[in-house]
């Protein structure tokens, strides 16, 4: 490919979505031109190659490229059509469309557009190097709109030639003074040739239009001057046809020829007139090509149907011989420029935008049945209401036109309409069709005209030049006029009556005077001679004609008697083959009278006289009976013939329906195929997802089995979905318990609030945490209840986990214990320090002080001993008193008596009471009852309960001791007692130095929880 041709190239390919194309690199290795993926808004520059990137389509607009993203969901099916269509509109005759190897039919519609706008169209030919996928170029070629079909290696040369000639065209069109006259002359010459050959006069067309087409043909033929082209036209009739087609090129766009379709729209209501719902309206679009015309008519019909209350079914048989064009029509997918003539309302109602294309809606699609059918070879449809055959007849030539129009006449039901292209006419068959709208070529079938319909037209039919149709042969004018007149007179006056029939017995010519033998049959006018024959003649006529047809010889029947009114006419019947110019076998029938007509009596007499013989009469009777039988047989035969005819018609229409069904099934098949492909894709995606799910499931399973965290998944009804093996230690779960409510399962855990907590998670959507223990209290758990979120984040259950926190709890307990111990030790040391200081301050003598201090320390130690025995729990008051008094308890003679109800004291109260009792004992031992033999101490206490607050009143009484002397000053011992009772216990103490013995009365409150039980003695 030369790099300096001066053209820009855009390469559009069919790419799978998401497929990364290496095309630019591949092209780059083949050419010196710069190659790149095209970008949006690229200004097209000459001698560059632009490649369509994946997942996009491209259009062009004022010389700039527009890129359109497509998604995987909305794939563009015909990117080539879309680009060609926009290119044609943008560049006009400077556009070149090349269709290379590819599958499908993309590009065909685009080629049409380029051709219509005067551009050059090229398809990769199958010469030498076959295209690997020929269907795309073949479809384009079949449209008949491709200028050049050349092997791919010749395309560069053609393009270079095209680029060179672009400027010539401009020159020709400019019609500069020097050229003007020459060009105008040449144009008119071409128009003259066209008129002679085709009967169409283009001299009134815009000169530029005609010249463009001429130029395009010259280019294709590589002719340099217009004169040489005229020379070619004169020699080559095919070239005339090609030019004719090019000039006429009527690309069937939607609503192309607005006025024509408006005319059609006016007659549509007449199609539906008097039609019940079960009588379908049948329309035949002959030569439908890629379907635009069929869909346009469908659209108009649909619009009218929507105005009707009860609409009959509508069938549009759209036929063409080009199967690939039909494929495009069936798909109903058109690039936007093809729909430009459609109003936006119609576009929105009947088309669905899909990317840069539009797809017909089901409402249109279901009306149309597209099938391959040749109006020339195949039997026609029948009982059609409207035939639309636009711009097809012009391609057929006058000969075929003449055959096709009667065929249309046959196909139409009485009063049916024919809709032709603007440059077509029925003038040669004005007897068959009456104009409805002459300008827009709408015709109506003339009702009672009868034509013999050639179902199949032999291809070797000799060309007829005469304008008159039918089989009548124009009389050859020859010889002197007088002789002709004489012969005519003789024929008229003296020749026997005769008719000319064809092999089926249809009359093509009557002579004068046949009324004696023939009379019009009842019913619709018929040219059947057998129906018209008078009595006695019919069977003879039939057998004589059959004989002649078979033998191709003259057949003579004598003694034929025809009954005319009440008389009998004996006659001789002669049938002989008549070779007509048309080659169609015809037969001449002559009726030659033998004698005058006879009355019935004369007939009988004649019979008797001529042959009085009884045997003859017998024979005649038999003969007449036989004739009657023959007659009835013939009638039966005719009836079955009629039945066969109607069966045949039914078959034809059934065939049509089958065709349309078949066509629908084909469409369904296409749809199914694409659905199948999609399903396969979806399936493989699903397989991948299933694999991923399997993996995830396995991971989860392994996680569940390996985790030490007891977890159970519950749904909204607290039913177990799944659980981890660690859970079996907490709830007595077995694998079969999935699906049972968790509350049914026996638990090893003390967690009565589980149900409320789960409810709280449902209510608040917040996690809940709680400490709990196993039933035996040995294991501590942290229960954590988390909301289970479904796919949409909605609450779909609860996850309950139990984490064994026994070690943590034990650790915490140890820590608390250590802290408590720490605190107590510190407190005790502080107390000891205070005790030491206060004792030693009070007692100046160090030895005595030390003794008292140590004794007090021992008392404290005893109290602590008591407490430690009870694990720092509560200590009984009795024990506290007893531990200080016990050294003085004499087994022989009790000096000490302790009595009172059982009262448990807090450690603090116990310590305070212990210190008080110690001081009292010490004093008693030193100065009081315990200092003398015979003295005794009585300790008693009672509990009072005043309005809920319990108080203890402890009475210390000494007797028989040393004489009581009140101390001169309040010693530390007394202070200590007062402080302990007042400050430590919150009570009061009353000490009395009575003459019979020291007495102390302690009155202090008990904690509200203090347990008091009945009295016990010591």
């Amino acid at each position, binding site marked *: 490919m030369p790099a300096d041709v001066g053209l820009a190239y855009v390469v559009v390919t069919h790419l799978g979505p998401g497929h990364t194309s290496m095309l630019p690199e591949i092209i780059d290795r083949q050419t010196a031109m710069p190659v790149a993926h095209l970008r949006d808004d690229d200004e097209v520059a000459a001698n560059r190659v632009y490649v369509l990137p994946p997942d996009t389509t491209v259009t062009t607009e004022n010389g700039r490229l527009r890129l359109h993203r497509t998604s995987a969901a909305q794939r563009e099916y015909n990117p080539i059509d879309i680009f060609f269509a926009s290119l044609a509109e943008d560049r006009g005759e400077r556009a070149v469309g090349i269709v290379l190897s590819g599958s499908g039919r993309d590009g065909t519609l685009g080629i049409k557009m380029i051709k219509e706008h005067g551009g050059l169209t090229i398809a990769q030919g199958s010469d030498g190097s076959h295209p690997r996928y020929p269907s795309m170029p073949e479809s384009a070629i079949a449209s008949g709109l491709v200028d050049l079909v050349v092997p791919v290696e010749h395309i560069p040369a053609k393009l270079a030639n095209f680029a060179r000639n672009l400027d010539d065209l401009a020159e020709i069109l400019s019609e500069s003074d020097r050229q003007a006259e020459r060009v105008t002359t040449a144009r008119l010459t071409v128009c003259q040739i066209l008129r002679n050959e085709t009967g169409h006069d283009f001299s009134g067309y815009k000169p530029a239009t005609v010249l463009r087409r001429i130029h395009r043909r010259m280019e294709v033929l590589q002719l340099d001057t217009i004169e040489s082209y005229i020379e070619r036209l004169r020699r080559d009739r095919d070239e005339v046809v090609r030019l004719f087609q090019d000039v006429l090129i009527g690309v069937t766009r939607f609503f192309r020829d607005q006025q024509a379709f408006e005319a059609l729209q006016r007659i549509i209501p007449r199609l539906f007139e008097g039609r019940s719902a079960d009588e379908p309206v049948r329309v035949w679009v002959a030569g439908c090509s890629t379907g635009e015309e069929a869909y346009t008519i469908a659209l108009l019909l649909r619009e009218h149907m929507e105005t009707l209350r009860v609409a009959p079914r509508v069938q549009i048989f759209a036929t063409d011989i080009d199967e690939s064009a039909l494929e495009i029509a069936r798909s109903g997918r058109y690039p936007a420029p093809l729909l430009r003539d459609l109003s936006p309302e119609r576009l929105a109602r009947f088309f669905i935008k899909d990317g840069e294309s539009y797809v017909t809606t089901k409402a249109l699609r279901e009306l149309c049945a597209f099938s391959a059918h040749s109006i020339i070879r195949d039997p026609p449809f029948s009982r059609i209401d409207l035939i639309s055959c636009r711009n097809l007849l012009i391609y057929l030539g006058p000969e075929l036109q003449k055959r096709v129009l009667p065929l249309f006449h046959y196909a139409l039901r009485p009063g049916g309409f024919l809709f032709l292209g603007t440059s077509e006419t029925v003038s040669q068959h004005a007897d068959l069709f009456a104009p409805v709208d002459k300008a827009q070529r709408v015709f109506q079938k003339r009702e009672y005209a009868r034509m013999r319909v050639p179902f199949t037209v032999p291809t070797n039919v000799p060309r007829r030049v005469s304008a008159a149709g039918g089989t009548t042969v124009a009389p050859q004018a020859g010889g002197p006029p007088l002789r002709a007149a004489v012969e005519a007179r003789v024929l008229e006056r003296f020749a026997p009556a005769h008719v000319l029939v064809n092999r089926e017995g249809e009359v093509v010519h009557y002579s004068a005077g046949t009324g004696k033998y023939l009379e019009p049959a009842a019913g619709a006018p018929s040219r059947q001679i057998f129906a018209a024959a008078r009595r006695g003649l019919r069977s003879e006529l039939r057998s004589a004609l059959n004989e002649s047809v078979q033998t191709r010889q003259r057949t003579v029947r004598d003694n034929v008697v025809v009954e005319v009114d009440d008389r009998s006419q004996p006659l001789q019947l002669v049938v002989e083959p008549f070779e007509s110019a048309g080659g169609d076998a015809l037969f001449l029938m002559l009726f030659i009278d033998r004698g005058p007509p006879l009355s019935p009596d004369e007939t009988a007499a004649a019979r008797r006289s001529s042959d009085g013989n009884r045997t003859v009469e017998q024979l005649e009777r038999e003969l007449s009976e036989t004739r009657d039988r023959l007659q009835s047989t013939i009638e039966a035969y005719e009836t079955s013939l009629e039945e066969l005819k109607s069966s045949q018609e039914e078959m034809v229409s059934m065939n049509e329906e089958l065709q349309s069904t078949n066509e629908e099934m084909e469409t369904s098949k296409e749809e199914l195929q694409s659905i199948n492909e999609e399903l396969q894709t979806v399936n493989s995606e699903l397989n991948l997802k299933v694999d991923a799910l399997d993996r995830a499931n396995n991971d989860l399973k392994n996680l569940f089995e390996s985790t030490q965290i007891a977890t159970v998944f519950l749904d909204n009804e607290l039913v177990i979905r799944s659980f981890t093996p660690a859970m079996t230690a907490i709830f007595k779960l077995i694998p079969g318990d999935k699906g049972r409510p968790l509350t049914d399962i026996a638990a090893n855990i003390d967690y009565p609030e589980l149900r409320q907590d789960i409810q709280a998670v449902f209510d608040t959507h917040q996690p809940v945490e709680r400490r709990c223990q196993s039933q035996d209290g040995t294991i501590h758990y942290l229960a954590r209840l988390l909301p289970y979120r479904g796919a949409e984040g909605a609450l779909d259950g609860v996850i309950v986990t139990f984490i064994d926190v026994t070690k943590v709890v034990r650790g915490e307990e140890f820590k608390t214990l250590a*802290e408590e111990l*720490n*605190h107590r030790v510190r407190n005790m040391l*502080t107390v000891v320090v205070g*005790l030491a200081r*206060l004792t030693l301050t009070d007692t100046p003598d160090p030895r005595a002080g030390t003794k008292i201090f140590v004794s007090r320390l021992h008392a404290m130690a005893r109290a602590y001993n008591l407490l430690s025995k009870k694990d720092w729990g509560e200590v009984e008051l009795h024990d506290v008193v007893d531990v200080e008094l016990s050294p003085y308890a004499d087994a022989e003679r009790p000096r000490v008596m302790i009595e009172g109800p059982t009262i448990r004291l807090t450690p*603090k109260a116990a310590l*305070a009471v212990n210190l008080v009792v110690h001081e009292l004992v010490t004093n008693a031992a030193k100065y009081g009852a315990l200092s003398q033999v015979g003295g005794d101490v009585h300790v008693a206490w009672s509990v009072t309960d005043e309005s809920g607050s319990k108080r203890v009143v402890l009475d210390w009484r000494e007797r028989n001791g040393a004489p009581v002397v009140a101390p001169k000053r309040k010693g530390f011992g007394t202070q200590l007692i007062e*402080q302990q009772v007042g400050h430590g216990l919150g009570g009061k103490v009353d000490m009395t130095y009575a003459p019979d013995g020291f007495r102390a009365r302690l009155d202090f409150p008990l904690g509200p929880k203090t347990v008091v039980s009945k009295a016990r003695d010591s």
Partner: protein
Amino acid sequence: MNLDDLVGRRVLVVEDDPLIAATQKMVLESAGCTVLGPDSGVGAALRTIGAHRIDLALLDVNLGDEAAFPVADALAARGVPFVFLTGYGSETLPSMHRNRPCLTKPCEDDDLLAALCDALRRKPQHRVEQRS
């Protein structure tokens, strides 16, 4: 250290243990303070606060079954400086009293008096903080 600041100060002592309370009373009185209390519980201490002008306070955090924090709150509200005394670590203090001076039992007399003195000096600063 100048302990003269303490002379004549009215010091509230809140301590549940009678022996310790007596010891503290002795120490404070020897430093020239007037001791209010000693009170062994929250109720008694609050009554004392309501009835007397108080310059300083010494609070045992753990008062048997109850903690001394309501007393601390009442003192703080009146802008009375005070010193905590505890057998536990200071981490048991609520956040609003975390910055108060806190002595750990058993403590030397000098440390106790120094802490009280220090609290007295920080008093104005404290007031500003409380207003802000």
